[in-house]
């Protein structure tokens, strides 16, 4: 059975730089809702962006580890129902402050762009 696959053109695709820039605030915002793990975080990003944000899934972990190294989040291990250990991440107080700062900055960018596009 032929499958209709809609290929996004380069213009429609969200640029790599923007994806990278939005990674930290997105991850912090997702973890603000509660502890989560890599696979679930990727699902949430997909859901939040309606599938528009395409993350290379393997690249999520270096970002999470960098945030952990910066002291914004922390990880802990817990066993799932299958008995396998799984690494979860949660926000630290420093992460909450960083998220508030990110939010202010993105609001400014968003407001500026909105104004610019209204007048364009």
């Amino acid at each position: 059975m032929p499958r209709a696959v809609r290929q996004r053109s380069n213009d429609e695709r969200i640029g790599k730089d923007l994806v990278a820039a939005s990674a930290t605030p997105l991850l912090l915002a997702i973890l603000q809702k509660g502890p989560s793990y890599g696979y679930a975080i990727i699902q949430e990003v997909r859901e939040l962006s309606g599938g528009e944000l395409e993350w290379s899934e393997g690249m999520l972990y270096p970002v999470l580890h960098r945030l952990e190294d910066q002291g914004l989040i922390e990880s802990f291990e817990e066993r799932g129902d299958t008995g396998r250990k799984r690494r979860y991440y949660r926000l630290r107080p420093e992460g909450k402050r960083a998220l508030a700062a990110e939010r202010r900055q993105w609001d400014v960018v968003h407001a500026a762009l909105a104004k610019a596009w209204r007048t364009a």
Partner: protein
Amino acid sequence: MKDEDTTNAVPNEPIEQYRKQLVAEAGLADGDLDEIEDHLRLLTAELRDSGMPAAEAVTEAARRLGDPKQVAREHARVRSPFGHLPRARAWSAALLLVPPLLMPMLDAIGYGLTRGAVELGFGVLLALGMIARVPWARPIVFGAMAFFLLPTLFATILWGQSPLWLVWHLGVLAFVMPWRRSELPAAGWNLVLQVWTYGASTLALAYQFTSSDGTISVVMPLATVAMGCAVVGTCGGILRARWGAFASALGAVALLGAIGAMWSMRIRLAHPDLFATYLLGLVSSGAVAAAVAARLAWRTARSTFGTLQHVLR
């Protein structure tokens, strides 16, 4: 907390292959590898449940996760192959280490450039290295503190050394110890074991062994060889060079020889049997550590001559 446990009956071989490729490119810690494997399994299960054949699902999952070489390289930029130590713990350990090492080091230098002065000076440099986040400083400090814990305990209990030293020792150990699996990958454990071997060799050197007929023992030359091998093995471990494994293997053989000599000469020491057992036990642990380090060094080596990539970062 979200959780999904749909990992049953996914094909293992391609997943293990992906994991091996990650290890080959960068020595990731087991915890980090497990995390990526967990993701791969969940993604495979999701694709399979959506109707994709299992073999195709695992290939697609691996594609979506990304080229393992690239994923490993990205990891290596964030995580050192020698492990990860949070800044606060690195500073705490260094601040605890430096003052008690600095004074005896200056004293020892007063008597010339003795081995003791060099070792203490290196300890100070390692402590400063931890502050500067030199990645291999922590496993070396941990190895030294772990090995000398028993001698410190012994000295406190049997020879009346101030218990403050034991408290200090345990304090430093608590900060540098890998409390979680992800903190110290295999390349880091290799360095820990190299230092353990070095410690065992110095212990074998510290006592004068003579045979029952008074001839000079071979313990000293063999322990010196093992000590040299541990130093070479540590350098090889930092560079992640294959030759480090050969040095460790030679060190293991030399220490085994020293243990054999100690045993056959019935250790003529002016101490009770307990002390001889303790001494033989620790030196033997050095031989085991050298053998395991040889295997780890081989497994985590990047190439025959190694790389300078993680020497400073």
